[in-house]
């Protein structure tokens, strides 16, 4: 059972459908009171960092997530949901994040100026470290990205990267906190296998 956090940022239709497709029971909630009972948490998100973190803090959803993670509850963030895990973001000003993973969210600035921003489309994964969420993923498999900012974090937190005129953090893990910059719910069979792997993880909490 996965609890998906609904905080009014972006569309969760495909994510909920993809969880159903991998046979996982999923509930969608915007109530922080329901988070303490969650077995696993999923934080989606599309849009701007400042708006998203403000909405998460409204009503104390951020505190509820931090408390659950502290107890060992696995947390999976997707796209902007993952970016919120870091210390800060430089998207339209400076915004403080959840501080679950050290690092800064920065604009994508490839050396090759002809490359288009956002980084949008299918790109290959380079796996840099084994991780439970990548147990069904092979080196070089393609996943779907749509983003203009990336998470600059020490290599120890990175489990996969992609190349786009620079090396982009594609997936991260720090203990029980997992995240992907790409959208597993839009990455065909490769993405579904990753969600399945997260759902299959044993819970220590």
């Amino acid at each position, binding site marked *: 059972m996965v609890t998906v956090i609904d905080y009014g940022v972006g569309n969760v*239709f495909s994510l909920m459908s993809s969880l159903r497709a991998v046979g996982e029971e999923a509930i969608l909630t915007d109530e922080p009171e329901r988070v303490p009972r969650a077995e696993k948490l999923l934080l989606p998100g599309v849009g701007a960092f400042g708006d998203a973190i403000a909405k998460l803090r409204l009503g104390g959803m951020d505190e509820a997530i931090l408390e659950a993670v502290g107890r060992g509850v696995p947390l999976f963030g997707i796209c902007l949901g993952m970016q919120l895990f870091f210390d800060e973001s430089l998207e339209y000003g400076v915004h403080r994040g959840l501080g679950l993973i050290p690092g800064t969210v920065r604009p994508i600035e490839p050396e090759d100026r002809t490359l*288009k921003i956002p*980084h949008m489309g299918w790109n*290959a994964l380079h796996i840099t470290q084994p991780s439970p969420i990548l147990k069904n993923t092979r080196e070089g498999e*393609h996943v779907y990205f749509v983003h203009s900012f990336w998470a600059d974090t020490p290599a120890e937190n990175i489990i996969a990267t992609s190349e786009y005129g620079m090396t982009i953090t594609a997936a991260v893990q720090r203990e029980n906190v997992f995240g992907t910059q790409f959208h597993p719910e839009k990455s065909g*069979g490769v993405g579904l296998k990753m969600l399945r792997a997260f759902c299959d993880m044993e819970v220590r909490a």
Partner: protein
Amino acid sequence: MITKRIIPCLDVRDGRVVKGVNFEGLNDVSSPVELGKYYSDSGADELVFYDITASAEGRALFTDILRKVAETIFIPLTVGGGINTVDDFDRVLKCGADKVSVNSGAIRDPSLIPAAAKKYGDQCVVLSADVKRVDGRFTLLARGGRDNTGLDAIEWIKRGAENGAGEIVVNSIDTDGVKGGFDLELLDAVCSAVHVPVIASGGGGCIEDFVKLFQTLPDVDAGLAASIFHFGEVSIPELKRRLAAAGINVREVL
């Protein structure tokens, strides 16, 4: 690096795919769900569903069917046809669309693109332009190519990108249906004018046309076609193998 995308386009009328024909292993070739799944399994990188319904009932059927497609297929979905207002964006995005394509709606109301981009982000707004040479000039057509707007098509596309369109579909009316290859001259002009992804449409008749498209114009991001995929003239797995063999970066087909 980002792969070149292959995008089948499905015309939907009253919730059924128009011109769906003869696919082995498909029971209902006019079901958008079945055909969409077939393409997704074949390695299509994205699907475009184009609503050609005129009636309100047909529109309701379309959103219904879109929801079913989005529950079944986990690759990016673009929806076009009948998008005239920000509420139309909302209607299809709620049903699982990732991107929304505007054409005549943006010509009627030039504030549609900036308003939608502000609300949903540039990546969500696709400007689809029907272009024809009139007196030697690339000219913008409206209403599926029926009306000549008199507008310079390259200027229109450039302005659209500046106003927040995150992607451009360039449909050449001159090459559409001729199957003599994509309109490389027009596409080159568009690629020089904008810095957002460009999708080529109109004229792709065989595998070689796609190879030539991406080899000649490396700035083109995707090739879109309808009937050659629907009629089985070009199979997507074979197309991708041939593109890869020609040194063009494509997503592997599992």
